[in-house]
């Protein structure tokens, strides 16, 4: 079974600085999708960014970018110019393109604290 590991239970960053959240996954598949979700205190799950495994180019969404290392099965999230509103729980998730039901497998999450 595929697993997703987020090894950092908590991270802190100073406002305006850059922080990187780590994620590794275990799979024998070559075609899959990876996602980062943000969960602020409101509990709402918000999609931050996604990456298709067949694309070599790292995905970017404004201040959010990923470092996708397919051979290493690593998918880290970089947040630049951190803002107070970035404080949240961040979840890394994996989806195998061939698995029936298109189910997402989530990591345990990383709490990000932003200091002013």
């Amino acid at each position, binding site marked *: 079974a595929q697993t997703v590991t987020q090894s950092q239970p908590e991270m802190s960053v100073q406002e305006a600085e850059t922080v990187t959240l780590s994620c590794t996954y275990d799979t024998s598949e070559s075609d899959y999708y990876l996602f980062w979700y943000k969960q602020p205190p409101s509990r*709402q799950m918000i*999609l931050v960014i996604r990456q298709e495994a067949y694309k070599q180019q790292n995905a970017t969404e404004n201040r959010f970018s990923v470092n996708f290392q397919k051979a290493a099965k690593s998918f880290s999230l970089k947040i630049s110019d951190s803002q107070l509103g970035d404080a949240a729980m961040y979840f890394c998730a994996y989806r195998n393109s061939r698995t029936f*039901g298109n189910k997402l497998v989530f990591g345990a999450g990383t709490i990000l604290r932003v200091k002013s």
Partner: protein
Amino acid sequence: DAGITQSPRHKVTETGTPVTLRCHQTENHRYMYWYRQDPGHGLRLIHYSYGVKDTDKGEVSDGYSVSRSKTEDFLLTLESATSSQTSVYFCATRTGPTGELFFGEGSRLTVL
């Protein structure tokens, strides 16, 4: 947004009582999912549906059942709630070719 509404948003119940959580979507999405969120575990899949009356188990399905009689509604039932089922429950639907999920706002269930 996929227009996903969960009800109730908060519920406190006693051990042994039945509980039903409802998920309603307005986007006509085929796939719907129920996850539970617990500290240290992230989100874990309970059950999912790939169409009306078509459902399958996820990784933590014991003690739960689901039903989907209409495209827009996906019900999660705890036949006899236990304290280990105290959790936050999320409904999600799948949209788009890349398959990201859109989530409801969650339902916090406390079993005393």
